[in-house]
């Protein structure tokens, strides 16, 4: 099976601070569903940041989607990010844009036609059950609805990999369930590789998954 992520002796650190992730080795198969857990400050979000190139490896190698992230150029990083969808706990939506425009963002960046973009946005709004909120701005929506917009944005361009950092951390049960369903269906139907950083894995998940745990800068396979 193809590897979407391969890390060898990977060490991560923020500039002028101590090493957070220390010489870890792990890989993620294409089309798999992976959970990374760990206590607060263990470095799980730091690891996720390194997967979309926001933090460069201090040592070792990290390959995502066949692209080495050690010393990657801005141009190559942009190219890689066009094939990744990211979901954050705090949504990271552009507040001055409507929810449709937020969902359009990866499609615009990837140069899709206007008709394709419009159809895809309509379809995604239905998919995340937000048709009734069309035309609104993120701050006019509840937290759960904003996260559904962020999910729709992450799914819009059919990425090979979705990275989610505590995607249900601030949400009510209904929105949480919907987010997990969306991630599950992307994994099952589109074979999208999903990596979720979270404190706890939901019990209701109907998908095979791998579970890694981070502790003291090391990553260990749990399941």
């Amino acid at each position, binding site marked *: 099976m193809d590897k979407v992520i391969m890390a060898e002796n990977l060490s991560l650190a923020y500039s002028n601070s101590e090493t957070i992730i220390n010489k870890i080795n792990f890989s993620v198969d294409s089309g798999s569903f992976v959970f990374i857990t760990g206590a607060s400050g263990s470095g799980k979000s730091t690891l996720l940041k390194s997967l979309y190139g926001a933090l460069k490896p201090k040592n070792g190698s990290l390959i995502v989607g066949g692209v080495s992230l050690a010393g990657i150029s801005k141009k190559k990083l*942009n190219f890689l990010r066009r094939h990744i969808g990211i979901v954050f706990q705090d949504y*990271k939506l*552009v507040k001055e844009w409507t929810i449709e425009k937020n969902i359009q*963002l990866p499609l*615009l*960046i*990837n140069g899709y036609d206007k008709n394709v973009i419009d159809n895809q946005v309509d379809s995604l709004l239905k998919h995340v059950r937000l048709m009734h909120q069309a035309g609104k701005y993120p701050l006019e929506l509840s937290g759960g609805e904003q996260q559904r917009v962020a999910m729709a944005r992450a799914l819009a361009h059919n990425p090979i990999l979705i990275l989610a950092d505590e995607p249900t951390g601030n949400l009510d049960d209904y929105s949480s369930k919907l987010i997990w369903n969306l991630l599950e269906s992307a994994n099952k139907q589109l074979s999208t590789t999903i990596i979720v950083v979270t404190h706890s894995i939901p019990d209701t998940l109907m998908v095979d998954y791998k579970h890694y745990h981070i502790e003291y800068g090391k990553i260990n396979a749990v399941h």
Partner: protein
Amino acid sequence: MQSIKNHLSLIIALLSILASIQIFIVTERAINAYKNNLATNYAVIVVSHKIIKPDTFLAMDDIVLDSQEIAPDSVIKKINSKMDAKDIELIKLGLPRFYKIHLKYYPSPVEIEQLTKKLFQNHSIYKVEDFSNIHDKTYKLLLLFKGVVSVFAVIILLVTILLIFKELKIWQFKHSERMSIMGLFGAPIWLRSVVLFRLAIVDAIISSILIFILLSYFSVNPWVLDQFRSVGIEVMIFDSFNDFLVLFSVSIIVSILLASLIVVGHKEEL
């Protein structure tokens, strides 16, 4: 509402810059017009033993526009009541020659001094009246006026630049989150910055249109025109093509510079 406020702050800053530039341009024009006015009313008087041809004066200095001989008739008329024509002709032959030299523009004190020296190089000239005392006062008054207006314009410009830098920080704060989010999805720099540049250019265009309307109004306002006429000069307050081109260019350059500084100074926060 917030968006309008952000637009307004840049537009007001740009308007201040454009207004101070135009004030400077108009002051320059007014001073030049006033200098031309003074030049037409100003002449150097030369007294010579012999006849000097106009070409001789013209060859002395580039500043010389023309010369004319002052006829002695008016002086003689005052004393001719008891003299006969023969005596008058004899007196005329014995009188020195008076010349009035007009200059191309209103000279500086140094230029007057140089001209006087050149005139004295002609040995038949033995007296030059340059009215330097009156001239010096007027010239220094002009320089003072120009200096005051220039300082005023520079102060406005400095305050405006401070405003622009404040605006830069607000824009940096406002746009950096959007630019970072776009960066997360692989948007190239030009695409991340396009909104910013579009806003900057729109604000520059709005400022240019507003200053055009404002200056067009002032350029035909009777009160403003009367102020210039009262000191005997006609000044073009606003050249709707050339001045507008200068102001529009400044407005676009400042806005694009501002947007470029934000793009260059942007750091990804995510």
